[in-house]
């Protein structure tokens, strides 16, 4: 048991070491490093980290959500449209309402997958179309805004790097850890590693899946709110949602979540976002054309999944 625990942590430790190495490299290149730079880095990783965490929960449960980026973009557009010029109180109320909405959207996706028995790839590809269409309907062109004091509460201001740090860690503490320790958490790992034996052991597979997609939706909603707080606008672009989805899968896999399901946690994906942020940033610092960032993201995802798979396979053979 202890050995398994160490093995599980070894992945996270590996990520931390790589992230620290890349971080030092990046920080050395900066003229000064203070709390302002720390906040910039946190803001850079926050949306990817939250989305990767949401994707990780779903992948652990044996699924995949290709609409997670679209969920985030939709919440981003809704938030920017309706929060622009509103007071702090209304902003908070809207945030709660939107988080509820994204949770419901996730739950509905899970319900459709369970009821229809269509592969999750197809259902989520189709829902991503619907959600992006809805986002384009809400916010036909980039724009909108958010109450500034609410935005500062979520993402900090100037040198205040604590708010984004709290936004990153709080969901881990109040959503992931209770879930991980609950029956639903055990059921999540059970259906991820073997759906049939989980069912035969009395796990309600459909209900568990719905819960997972709901929590995934909640994380996507959080990511959308954070995006609004950082950019102070809503951007209804399918390309943003595709890149975000791709990043979320890369983050989850790099964070030690196996695409076959049943393995991994959420701390890894949260840390992996650091690596996904540092590598393009460092490459761009070396004077590489920003147009290459798509290539970097895509290639990085492929390499990460490839190496992750190879390491895992070697571990199995041993």
């Amino acid at each position, binding site marked *: 048991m202890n050995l398994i625990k160490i093995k599980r942590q070894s992945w996270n430790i590996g990520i931390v070491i790589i992230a620290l190495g890349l971080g030092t490299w990046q920080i050395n290149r900066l003229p000064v490093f203070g709390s302002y730079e720390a906040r910039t880095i946190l803001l850079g990783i926050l949306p990817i980290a939250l989305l990767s965490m949401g994707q990780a929960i779903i992948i652990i449960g044996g699924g995949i959500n290709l609409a997670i980026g679209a969920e985030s973009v939709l919440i981003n557009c809704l938030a920017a449209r309706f929060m622009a010029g509103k007071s702090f109180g209304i902003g908070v109320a809207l945030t709660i309402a939107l988080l509820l909405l994204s949770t419901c959207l996730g739950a509905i996706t899970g319900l459709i997958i369970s009821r229809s028995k269509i592969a999750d790839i197809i259902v989520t*590809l*189709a829902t991503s*179309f*619907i959600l992006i269409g809805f986002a384009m309907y809400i916010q036909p062109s980039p724009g909108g805004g958010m109450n500034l004091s609410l935005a500062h509460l979520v993402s900090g201001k100037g040198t205040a790097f604590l708010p984004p740090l709290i936004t990153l860690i709080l969901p881990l503490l109040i959503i992931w850890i209770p879930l991980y320790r609950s029956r639903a958490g055990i059921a999540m790992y059970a259906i991820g590693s073997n759906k049939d034996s989980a069912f035969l052991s009395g796990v309600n597979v459909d209900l568990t899946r719905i819960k997972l997609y709901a929590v995934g939706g909640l994380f996507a909603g959080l990511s959308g709110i954070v995006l609004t707080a950082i950019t102070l606008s809503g951007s209804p672009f399918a390309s943003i949602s595709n890149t975000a989805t791709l990043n979320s899968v890369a983050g989850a896999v790099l964070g030690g979540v196996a695409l076959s399901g049943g393995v991994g946690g959420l701390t890894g994906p949260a840390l992996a976002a650091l690596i996904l942020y540092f590598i393009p940033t460092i490459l761009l610092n070396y004077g590489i054309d920003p*147009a290459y960032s798509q*290539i970097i993201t*895509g*290639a990085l995802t*492929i390499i990460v*999944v490839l190496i992750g798979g190879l390491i895992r396979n070697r571990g199995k053979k041993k």
Partner: protein
Amino acid sequence: MANLIKKAQARTSIAMLSLWGILFTLFIITGLVDHYFFTISSIGVTLQLAVPLGLLAAGQTICMLTGGIDLSIAMIATGAAFIVSIKSPSGLGWAILYATLYCILIGTINGLAVGLFGMNPLIMTLGMNAVLIGVFTVGITTFLKGSSTMPDIIIKLSSGTIVDPISWPLVLWVVFGGLIIFILSKTGLGRLIYAVGDNATAARLAGVRVWKVQLAAYIICALFSGLAGLMIGGQSGAVAMSLADSLVLPSVAAVVIGGTSIMGGIGSYTGSVMGALILTVLSYLLATLNSTEAVKQMIYGAIVLTLAWTYSKITEKS
């Protein structure tokens, strides 16, 4: 055994019948909404517009039959169209050769990654798509600078009418679609594609080089996508980065609606052709409704989901 085959045949015929039913219903509804739809020339145009989707679905069918999926088809198609339009001043033959080599190259990379390195096909091809978007975004301002109009002969082949409602693209579709049906039902490769998709382990133990079959599947898929790209480019007259973006979900949807299992091993190209026709009539119907792109996208996604759901329910019961 004979009983099983009979059951399977009954299921397929009921499924095909329901596909014809859906197509017929959509056809009638479209005709009622738009009175010009019931003319021979507009039927010809609809068939013509179905060709690129049908060709993309051909590649996708082969990939899905092996248990894979190819989401990089959008950029394979767009890339092939770009290469032909830019290289055509130096001779059409060379242009087509370059485009073919490009398709084979991308198909080979996808196939080797999936077959030999055990990459998850979804992630591999999504990542590949992102890389290609990056390459071509950079390329059109540097090494792929040049004309963005398609050569006349391709425009003729992709939108020229012979006798209403028969057009050149339709002839091409019949030829290449027939080729796919022939490969799948009469050749050894076709048998192997079904065998690998049904049970890769069993196929490997029976002496099949599974990776070679997967490699072939991805190369065929890439070639068909490239051909589809030329058709789309020819129909719109010029190439653009987002040329085939809107056809990725439909290509997957056409195959799924047509009864091919995303798990592999079950399905046929005939079903995918029906799927492609249904989706083309559907987008014609949506185009006649006076609504924004956002609303169209929402309706489209919802209908695709409903169709896939209905279809899986019909085949489940019988």
